[in-house]
């Protein structure tokens, strides 16, 4: 695997995680 390929997958992972973080944070507004 080339460094570039690794970088792309890592970026995908971080993008996925950031999307989850936004959803989790906003959804928690409805916590009791």
């Amino acid at each position, binding site marked *: 695997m080339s460094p570039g390929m690794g970088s792309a997958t890592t970026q995908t992972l971080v993008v996925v995680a950031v999307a989850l973080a936004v959803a*989790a944070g906003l959804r928690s507004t409805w916590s009791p």
Partner: protein
Amino acid sequence: MLGSITPLGERGRGSRWWVTVTAYVLGSTVAGVAVGSGLGFVGSSVAGHEPVTARLVVVSLGVIAGLLLDVGSFGLRVPTVRRQVDEGWRAGYRGWVWGFGYGIQLGAGVVTVVTTSTVYVTWLAAALSGSAVAGAVIGATFGLARAIPVLSVAGVRRPDQLLYVDAVLVRWAAPARRATYGVGAIVVCLALLGAARW
């Protein structure tokens, strides 16, 4: 929580709303960064050696399992502590103190009631991100997203306005829940596409 930090309430306690809110957002972000970077650092020694594609698959499976819990499949529910922030702090401490304290607790995500599995999967993703820096970015995003909605009550200066905000929150509760499911589904698709492509 939104109803706890309003200009109306802060005026009644002799505090400045923007000071309390700034401390709250700061505390939430700091907690998110601390948890995210900590998990990223710890996870880097283990998950950092695994292929990123495998980690994407694990996150996808985590999201799917979480969504099943969120919709109550098999009679199961999202595990959570029952603890909430101490309401007494608002009467006993200055605004910036309890604001920061509330922010720290809520920004950590899991020390008060957890309403969605995406909180757990976010921290799972931070642990699998491979570095403390990536974990910090993920955590900061969570902390900010957790706290920023408080700005929506910036105009609440009368009790009837607070009641209106409560009504809006009730009206948006179900759409917000469905939107979270939708984001989860999109994230799974994106992660699996990423894993398959590389």
